[in-house]
Each structure stands twice: as C-alpha cells, then as structure tokens.
C-alpha cells in the first residue's frame, strides 16, 4: 500500500453524553483501498463513518484527510459523499435531479450538470429511468441512483453505511459485485460499514472489526478468518471452537472438557494464567473411535446440523454444556452416524490451534 494514508484517525474519541461510542480510535485508511468496518449494532462503526463524513464531531482526537486536519470542516465542505442505509434519496426530485443535486450545490452550470449526471446514469445502467420518480423505482434501481448521486462529484473517497441491508439476498450479491467492480474501476477509496460478515469478507481489501467502540482487529479477510486475534473476534465470526482454561506452564491448557496441548509458537503462557485457545471448525474432525495421539479431542454429543452448500456444519455439545462445531463436506459426513444425541469425538491437530487475547 501507499506510504501516505488518505485518512488518519488519531486518538479519536466520540462520546454522546456519558455513552462512549468510539474509544481512542487509531486507524489509517489507504488510497484506493476497499475498507470494511464490521461489528454488531452499537459497536461504533457508523459513528466512525459519520465522523469521517463530518456529520458527527469527534469529542477528542484528530481526523486527517489527505494530510489535512478536517475536524472543524463542516460536511458540506468535505468531499466525503455517503451512501445511506435509508438511501435518503430526495422524493420530490426525479432520478436525474437527484444525481445532479451535489453538482448544483457546487455551483456547476445547468448544462454541464446534466451531461455529467447523464454520464453517471449510463454508467450505473439507469439512463432509462432518468425522469422517473424515486417512488417508482425498485430497491436495486434506487441503490444505483444513490451511488450515482454520491459519485457524480468524483470524490477520492466514498462512504457506505450498510447500503445493501434493505435488499433481497440475490440482489445483494449482484450489488456486491457492482460495488466491487466500481471501486476497482474508479480506483477510489471505499469505506464500507456493515454488520454482515459475508459482505465485508467478500468485498473488502481490509476489514476492521469493532466492538463497544474499540477496534478488535484489522486485517485482510484471510488473516482475520484464519487467525482471530481476540476472543470477541472468534465469537463474532462464529467459525471456531473456543477453549478457555488455565495454562499449566508446561505447554498444556487445562479446561473443563479436558487437557489440551497449546500451540508451539514459543509464546507459552505462564503457569496458572487464564488462556483462550481457538481452532477453526474447518480444521476440526469427527470420529466414532478415539483419535490417535497426534490429535487432541473432546467427547461430545450432536445437537444439530446445518447445510451450507458444499459442506455442512455439525453442532455438538460437550459434557460441560459448551458448544462445538465442525464443518465437513458431505462425503465425509456420510461415513459417520449423524443423528441428534449421537456421541462423537471432536478432534484437531495441536499445531492448528492458536491463542487469542481474552480482552
């Protein structure tokens, strides 16, 4: 990535009364990257985006855009257009008037305005709806109008606040590829706020995971998926088995469901220290017989099954009531007795595990 970041958050804090929405955020957003900010509702992701757009002012800290501090710049003087969750299209204007709006506000002449707006309608493949009312458009068409309206000023950065949340599943996938294609073509920065893992992971170059106003992890989809850094991230992604217990100081983890080998990465925790270890559900195995010594394992009972296309996820419950999950292809599963209540061994290789922080 480029050396000079497009956006820098420097110790940014946002409080609403006593509620701290964003706590000490340090984040760099690079030129031309597709960054997703992901988290559940109330995690501070939208507030972060709104501060960047200039719709909320940081309580503390500094935000820089292209090197310049923008804390005191009102939103109408920043070039940080946003695509809203509600889309916020102007219902009293038709499609092309909506797209022209930002140009009109910037004092662009009527003729040039029309031409530039028409170009964007064409680009978004909605030229035929130019004179339609917003109320007459479908959800996907409105989405395109909202994108055209924001992009018509040719900004360096586009902010998107859960823009696809109102769409049907199949339309969502199509709009995802539209967005991704657009971002590559334009080469501008997209900052995309979402609560959806699939949206963030399938589109973004880097993903920021937030919880309770704190950044839990920043990285590519692969990095985060393979190696969640914190217990929160592992739980949020929901694709790992999580074991908590105490380190015995000799590379073993004592948990309520058994004693397991800790990963041999040279950072063995001190004796007696609370430690959490995770292993991906795709790296976990099922068997009827007790696995060999190269595996660690838990004895558990099946409680349910979920199909996810080429694979299925089996949910199991260990003796202490904790839940485990294993994802396998159908051929592998066909060879196993998959019935609710069936006891099986859930196993993994110790070198497939890694530690996460409990914070």
């Amino acid at each position, binding site marked *: 990535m480029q050396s000079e970041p497009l956006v820098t958050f420097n110790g940014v804090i946002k409080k609403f009364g006593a509620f701290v929405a964003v706590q000490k955020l340090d984040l760099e957003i690079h030129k031309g990257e597709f960054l997703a900010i992901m988290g559940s509702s109330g995690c501070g992701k939208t507030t972060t985006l709104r501060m960047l*757009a*200039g*719709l909320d002012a940081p309580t503390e800290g500094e935000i820089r855009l292209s090197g310049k501090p923008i804390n005191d710049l*009102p*939103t*109408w003087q920043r070039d*940080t*257009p*946003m695509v*809203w*969750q*509600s889309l*916020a299209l*102007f*219902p*009293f*204007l038709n499609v092309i008037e909506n797209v022209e*709006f*930002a140009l*009109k*506000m*910037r004092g662009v002449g009527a003729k040039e305005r029309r031409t530039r707006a028409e170009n964007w309608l064409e680009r978004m493949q909605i030229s035929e709806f130019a004179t339609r009312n*917003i*109320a007459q458009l479908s*959800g996907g068409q409105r989405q395109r109008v909202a994108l055209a*309206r*924001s992009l018509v*000023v040719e900004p360096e950065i586009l902010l998107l606040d859960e823009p696809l949340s*109102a769409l049907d599943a199949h339309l969502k996938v199509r709009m995802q590829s539209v967005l991704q294609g657009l971002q590559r073509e334009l080469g501008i920065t997209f900052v995309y706020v979402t609560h959806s893992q699939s949206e963030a992971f399938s589109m973004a170059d880097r993903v920021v995971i937030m919880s309770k106003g704190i950044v839990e992890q920043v990285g590519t989809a692969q990095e985060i998926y393979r190696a969640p850094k914190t217990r929160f991230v592992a739980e949020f992604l929901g694709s790992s088995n999580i074991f908590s217990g105490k380190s015995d100081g000799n590379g073993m983890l004592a948990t309520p469901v058994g004693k397991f080998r800790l990963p041999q990465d040279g950072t063995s925790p001190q004796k007696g220290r609370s430690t959490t270890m995770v292993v991906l559900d795709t790296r976990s195995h099922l068997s009827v017989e007790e696995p060999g010594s190269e595996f660690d394992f838990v004895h558990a009972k099946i409680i349910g099954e979920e199909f996810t296309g080429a694979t299925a996820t089996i949910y199991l419950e260990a003796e202490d009531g904790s839940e485990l999950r294993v994802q396998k292809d159908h051929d592998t599963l066909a060879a196993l007795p998959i019935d609710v209540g069936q006891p099986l061994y859930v196993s993994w290789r110790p070198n497939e595990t890694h530690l996460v922080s409990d914070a």
Partner: protein
Amino acid sequence: MNDFNRSRFIEIGLRFYVVLSFAFVFAPIAASFIFSFNSDRFPSIPLGAFSTEWYRAVANDPLVWDGLGNTLFVGIIVSVVSTALGFGAAYTDFRYRFFGKPVYMALALLPPTIPVVILGLAMLAYLSRINLSGQSVSVIIAHIVICSPFAMAISRLRLSQMDPDLEAAAWNLGASEWAAMRYVIVPFCLPAIFGALFITMAVSFDEFAIAWFVSGLNETLPVKVLGFLQGQVSPRINVIGTFVFVTSMTLVIIAQILLTRQTRETPAKD
C-alpha cells in the same frame, strides 16, 4: 375493513347514525343557504319564490365590500406570516433538542386552547395600551397569534414523515444549512406549507370574537354580520353566511386535498 361478521341490522343503524350526525351539523347551514335564495323577508315555510334580490342587496352595500376587503387584506397577511412562523416553530422542534423544549412546544400550541373571549379581551387591553387597537393591524396581530399553531401543527406532521437522513444527506452532498433548507426541507414540505396557508386563511376568515374586540372601525366580514343581526332581521345575513361558508370550505378542501396527496406520495419503505 373486514365486516364479514357484522350484522346487517347494526350496519344499517350505523349508517343512519352517520347521516343523522351530518344532518344535525349541516342543517342550519343548509337552511341559511336555502333562505338566501328566498324572496320572503322572513325565514319561514312555505318558501316564497326563488330570488337573488338579497344577493344584489348585499353586492350593492358598500359596507359589505369594506368588510370583505378588510377580511381579505387581514386573511392574506395572516396566512403568510403565521405559516412562516408556524413552519419555523415546527422546524425548530424537528431539528433541535434543547433545554425546556416541552415548555416551548406547549407555549407554541397554547393560543387556540384559550377561550377566544378571554384572548380577545386580553388582546384589546394589550393592544390599546401600545396604541395598536382599532386598526387592521390589530386584527392581523391577534389572528397571527391564533393561526400560527395551526400552521405549526400541519408543518410538524409533514416533517414527521420526512426521513431524518434527508437533510444530512443534502449537507453531505455539499449543501450549506441554508441551501438544504431551500432545496430539500422546503420542497419536501411544500404541500404542507400550502395547506397551512389555506387553513390559516380560513381560520382568520371565520374568526369573529377576537376581531370583534380589536377591530374597531376596520371590521371584518363576520363582525359585519353581527352588525346586521343587531340592527334588523335581514335575509342578507343568509347571503353573507352562505358566502363565508363556501369560501372557508373551499380553502379547507384545497388544504385537505394537498395534505392527503402528500401522504400518499411519500414513498413506501422497502
């Protein structure tokens, strides 16, 4: 509505009840309308011949034209000023949160709840102290006080239908606060603004008690009507009554059409 289970008897009874209620409300107005075309001097049955002589008599009365002129002059200024004030108050409520807002809103909505006689008397006492009584401007001031809350209520309703992101989206697209007001808020509220103009004009047009107290020699039409009544029983009252009714109803119906259409135009959320 699902009236599959409703008994036929109750159905007919309810309809009859509605018709009866309307008849009760509108009978005096209808009577006034019918007698205004009656040639007889006194409103009695059987009716005399159809006649427009009372209309001619009214049309030829310079005092009536005076009253009508005053009413229109007052009505137009009142509707414009009170709609501007009412819209401003509604926008303040929509946009800002501040200490004492419930008190502010209660005060803004108060005037129509005060008995008009008391309000009229208070207005007279106050306006005469500052040498503003007995003029058209006295009626204008008094009417603005009672009309603004209506304009506010109508504007508030419209603003409550607005996606709160709309204004922020305008700012985000480069509109200053004034530009957003001009290009987004006002256009969105336009039907309500016109509705408020018509309703407040109708309220001012009809209002009698306060105008009676403060108008002095610049009587509005309803005050003139009282003058007729006190002097003599004249069918001209029916003519003026019919005229005032038709005018007010027209204004209210126009407002109603504007306000209903805006609701339907609001796009469905999907």
